[in-house]
């Protein structure tokens, strides 16, 4: 008779073994390669479009849109600090709007995700409100809020709130009901249950909702900053258009894209940090 000793340590389960670093490096290199190709193609198309503008006598005045003048203007406004002032004002408004959207949207999402009655009652009103463009509230916001800043923050919050509400509710509905039984059995109640079980359980959905909300908010920001204010990236675009500085205008557009990409990347990193689905 033979006896097999089965170890009860990390080596007992092959899943516990570290994944080969070489495979990770290859995947990383492939991803970086694709990104470089994508950026190269985009720059190439932009460069061709710039050449076409300069070559066309009717459009030569718009030559500032080409990569050369744009990147030069971008360097100038970044070096002078002007870009950072404008970006700071915009980021403050987006941060405040998103903060309000989270503060209101997460509890609302938990309510409609946790209560069938609340979900049924809120379904039609929320779907109706969701379908209204946030910018449609612009005249109302101007009347209601005492400052332009207040109106813009409201518009951003109105844009960002719905993805957060629905993602939170969706996350809550996916929670295994047995998790609540186990937690109650171990003494979990009220806020402790929310903090230790519910929030980590819905973290991935919630952050995905915030990511979507941020995307919408960043899009709404520019037209919202066309309202009365004299700061921010939206205002800067309008100002550059009025002064016919197309190179500065395009530089601001590029800056908006880059900042949006960085913000999205930060949220994506947070989603990766807090995700727990084994299939991810």
């Amino acid at each position, binding site marked *: 008779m033979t006896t097999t000793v089965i170890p009860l340590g990390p080596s007992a*389960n092959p899943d516990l073994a570290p994944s080969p670093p070489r495979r990770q490096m290859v995947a990383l290199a492939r991803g970086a390669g694709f990104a470089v190709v994508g950026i190269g193609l985009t720059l190439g198309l932009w460069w061709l479009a710039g050449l076409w503008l300069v070559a066309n006598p009717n459009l030569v005045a718009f030559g500032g849109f080409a990569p050369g003048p744009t990147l030069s203007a971008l360097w100038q406004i970044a070096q002078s600090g002007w870009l950072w002032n404008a970006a700071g004002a915009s980021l403050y408004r987006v941060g405040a709007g998103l903060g309000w959207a989270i503060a209101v949207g997460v509890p609302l999402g938990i309510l409609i995700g946790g209560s069938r009655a609340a979900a049924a009652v809120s379904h039609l009103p929320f779907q109706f409100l969701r379908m209204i463009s946030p910018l449609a509230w612009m005249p109302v916001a101007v009347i209601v809020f005492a400052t332009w800043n207040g109106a813009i923050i409201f518009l951003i919050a109105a844009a960002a709130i719905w993805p957060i509400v629905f993602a939170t509710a969706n996350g809550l509905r996916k929670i295994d009901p047995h998790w609540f039984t186990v937690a109650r*059995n171990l*003494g979990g109640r009220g806020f402790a249950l929310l903090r230790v079980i519910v929030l980590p359980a819905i973290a991935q959905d919630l952050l995905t909702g915030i990511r979507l909300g941020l995307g919408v908010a960043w899009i709404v920001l520019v037209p919202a900053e066309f309202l009365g204010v004299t700061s921010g990236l939206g205002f800067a675009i309008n100002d550059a258009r009025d002064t016919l500085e197309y190179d500065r205008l395009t530089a601001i557009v590029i800056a908006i894209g880059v900042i949006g990409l960085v913000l999205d990347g930060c949220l994506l990193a947070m989603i990766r940090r807090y995700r727990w689905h*084994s299939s991810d």
Partner: protein
Amino acid sequence: MVSNMNASHVTVSGLSHRYRATPALDGIDLDIPAGQRLAIVGRSGGGKSTLLHILAGLIRPTAGHVQIDGETVSGPSPRWNVMFQQASLYPWMSVRQSVELGLRFLNRRRQGDAIAERLLDLVGLDGLADVNVQKLSGGQQQRVALARSLATEPTLLLLDEPFSSLDALTRHDLQDAVGRIVSDLGLTMVLVTHDLDEAIVLADRIVVIGEQPGRIVADLLVDPTLSDRRDTHAIAPLRDKLLSLFGGQSAGGGEPHPHPARHAA
């Protein structure tokens, strides 16, 4: 740590429960002395788990009450914990965080690390404290669930078919581990199972629940002189007796037939 704990004395009086119009339990009276290892057996859907959940305070009975050490059970408590059929671990937690969960709810987190270390050693998972629970096998996950149930130092351990989803070898190992730990810690244990062999291996006393509605139809003490409870020849008489209480024909682990007869031994 937990080795000096006192076992709980449990009294169930006139307990009945209905799920809307469907009666689940009827007239259950039970007295479980401190330190006893009781198994509740019966067919699936017979109300065994409902009884266990009422004992744990997770379900309020329609009639009657449960007292643990003289205190009427009105809800869950860290003094009596349930180990469920599924480990139901939280997938974002490490093994250590899972074991410390009850202590975290009780604001006793400072003691968590020391208690977790000792319990993980007790259940044979030392060295895996910082591993995510999703990386563990089914048997290892149930060991974590067992350690989690023991972390709040309960005096009564309630087991709701905790081995039924495991393969035979893992089930065997875990049954031995639970039996050893319950004995070492001097806990009172209530095990719900539909596996007669498991009941005989782990319990000092076996209560048979008849179905629709669930009533106690037999209450047997397991012969304490049984030397090896895994010896199929040694346990055959008791096993046959249990099967006969159900009017069962099969001795191969299949479910017995539902013709319960009141019996006490």
